[in-house]
């Protein structure tokens, strides 16, 4: 039985047989061998020797593949970039391959969201088990959906991870329900993937801007978009990715600005003196935001210390939003010469965010209006790295986008309000800043994240539970914050190191700025 894509639809009963795999490798020998091996596993295989081609294929055949296997080194595009794209656009599990097994490479793969990293020469037995990644992802999706559904009656702004802010119990119930399910159910439940076309994405961005990134929430966006077939979950997960994209851009720009293009600057200074206390004034916020390898948010309001891996750019962003005159001009104009692969440039100049088009990334069109949102969640974005982004991947999965311009929107979206405190759990940003970040327990966490995706959710749950004890805070949380947490993927890296430096203190302070967030 063949569907329009020319692939038979996977039959849940025979899973994993019929698994639809896309193999991307510029080495013709490997491509042939892998194809043969996968066919022997009873999988359906398509091959590409160029990353571009693979992306086109994936976009054309929406929902035509279950998993992607790609080599890390390819001539037209870095495998890690492809990985990000696939994750962002199609949300498929991606396995990386390489003849190079150096830890740093593997790490990078994991950070970029690879669900596995295989070393060449690859044996057939390794390929036989790749279906586990597909299953795992589906399980998470179903969980997400359930979580979403369980809180439809709740207002968006208290909507949280797992749909349960107040107690981890509900989460456990969901988990239990899952456990009881037969595997078959999950296999046949295939979340239909929404392909975010340029038009659809534009509607999305328009809605987001209308609402204001800080106040945005999937429900509101959905209402504004008026796309009947789109579900709230679709929007929620897209929103999350959008934020990540923005944050990535943000981060890259800042890194550029602050470090003059030094990619892996070891920003590990944890000198408390540098951790700025964010006071109510916006300028303070600006001054205080410093690039830190550890992004720890503490409640900001004179007491807390906000140490973020954000660069001055962040400052300038805030500055721009709040009071352009205050921010030093140098800060504002971030000429980010984006990393080599990413030619987009985000220039912040007096509230203007422009982005050069990077022809390399087709997604650009989609995110044509990445404007103000960038600023808004600059803070949160930093931390929201659903798929890890190291500085090498300047283009966030979403890829370069067209012109980012909204000047006014910057202000609007951004409006950092002094009385709000940034109370977000912090993601241990170590990993984000540089590929060489010291990973003490991050590695372990990350491994846990990847391997035990369930735990990811629980961790977040705990995070939010602690917040839930402070009702005041909850209100001040932007919706966005919550939502972001929602669609956590196992690829969350480093972010699980939630650290609350100031404990309950943090919660007492008003939220500053928006989107600070825990991704």
């Amino acid at each position, binding site marked *: 039985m063949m569907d329009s894509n020319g692939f038979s639809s996977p039959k849940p009963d025979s899973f994993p047989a019929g698994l639809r795999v896309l193999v991307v490798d510029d*080495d013709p*020998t490997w491509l*042939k061998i892998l194809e043969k091996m996968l066919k022997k596993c009873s999988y359906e295989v398509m091959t590409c020797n160029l990353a571009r081609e693979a992306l086109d294929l994936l976009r054309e055949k929406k929902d035509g593949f279950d998993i992607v296997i790609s080599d890390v*080194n390819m001539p037209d595009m870095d495998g890690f970039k492809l990985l990000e794209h696939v994750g962002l656009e199609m949300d498929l599990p991606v396995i990386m391959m390489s003849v190079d097994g150096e830890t740093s490479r593997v790490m990078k793969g994991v950070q970029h969201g690879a669900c596995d990293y295989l070393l060449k020469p690859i044996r057939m037995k390794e390929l036989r088990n790749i279906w586990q990644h597909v299953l795992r992802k589906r399980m998470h999706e179903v969980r997400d959906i359930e979580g979403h559904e369980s809180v439809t009656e709740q207002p968006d702004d208290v909507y949280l991870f797992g749909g349960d802010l107040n107690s981890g119990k509900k989460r456990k119930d969901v988990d239990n329900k899952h456990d009881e399910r037969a595997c078959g159910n999950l296999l046949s439940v295939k979340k239909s993937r929404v392909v975010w076309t340029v038009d659809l994405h534009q509607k999305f961005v328009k809605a987001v801007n209308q609402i204001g990134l800080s106040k945005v929430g999937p429900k509101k966006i959905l209402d504004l978009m008026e796309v009947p077939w789109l579900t709230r979950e679709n929007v929620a997960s897209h929103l999350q990715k959008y934020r990540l994209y923005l944050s990535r851009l943000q981060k890259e720009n800042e890194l550029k600005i602050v470090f003059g293009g030094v990619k892996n600057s070891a920003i590990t200074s944890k000198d408390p003196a540098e951790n700025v206390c964010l006071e109510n004034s916006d300028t303070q916020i600006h001054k205080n935001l410093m690039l830190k390898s550890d992004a720890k948010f503490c409640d900001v309001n004179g007491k807390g210390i906000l140490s973020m891996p954000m660069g001055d750019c962040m400052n300038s962003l805030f500055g721009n939003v709040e009071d352009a005159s205050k921010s030093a001009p140098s800060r504002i104009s971030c000429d980010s010469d984006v990393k080599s692969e990413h030619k987009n440039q985000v220039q912040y100049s007096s509230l203007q965010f422009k982005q050069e088009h990077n022809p390399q990334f087709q997604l650009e069109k989609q995110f044509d209006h990445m404007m103000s949102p960038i600023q808004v969640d600059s803070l949160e974005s930093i931390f929201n790295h659903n798929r890890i982004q190291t500085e090498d991947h300047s283009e966030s999965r979403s890829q370069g986008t067209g012109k980012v311009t909204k000047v006014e929107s910057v202000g609007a979206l951004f409006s950092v309000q002094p009385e709000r405190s940034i109370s977000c759990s912090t993601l241990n940003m170590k990993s984000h800043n540089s590929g060489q970040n010291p990973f003490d327990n991050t590695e372990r966490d990350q491994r846990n994240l990847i391997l035990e995706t369930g735990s990811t959710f629980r961790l977040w749950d705990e995070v939010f539970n602690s917040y839930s004890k402070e009702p005041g805070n909850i209100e001040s949380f932007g919706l966005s914050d919550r939502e972001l947490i929602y669609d956590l993927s196992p690829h969350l890296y480093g972010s699980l190191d939630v650290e609350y430096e100031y404990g309950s203190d943090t919660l007492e302070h008003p939220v500053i700025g928006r989107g600070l967030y825990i991704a």
Partner: protein
Amino acid sequence: MENAGQLRRQYVDFVASLYHEGFLDDQFGQLQKLQDEGNPYFVVEVVSLYFEDSEKLMNNLTTALQQHVVDFKQIDAHVHQFKGSSSSIGAQRVKNTCVVFRDYCEEKNLDGCLKCLQQVKHEYYIVKNKLETMIRLERQILEAGGTIP
């Protein structure tokens, strides 16, 4: 004309020596296992692809090392590629030479790189020769009415 039995014995010994002398590693065995009735020429096809790809890579390497200003990064990329494809068919010696080659690239040791280029070409031609012999033997066995062991 040797009979199928003799040819088969020859073949077995020959292949065993290739493994024994380190020209081929287990990966080659994996390839042979992948061959089946549906794909009786699988190994030959893969090996041919490897030959084609390798010649290109070696040409690129030669050219790159002849440049006025040698781009070691580029060379490293080619060697990495060569290492990858050699690993695909189990051309162990070639692959090992690539490892050493990459070290020289990292050190930006031009002399070392040139020596490695020589070495890698040498190893490649040997294994190419061996594989062609093996394929020829297989054909002979089939022509003699036998089956490949």
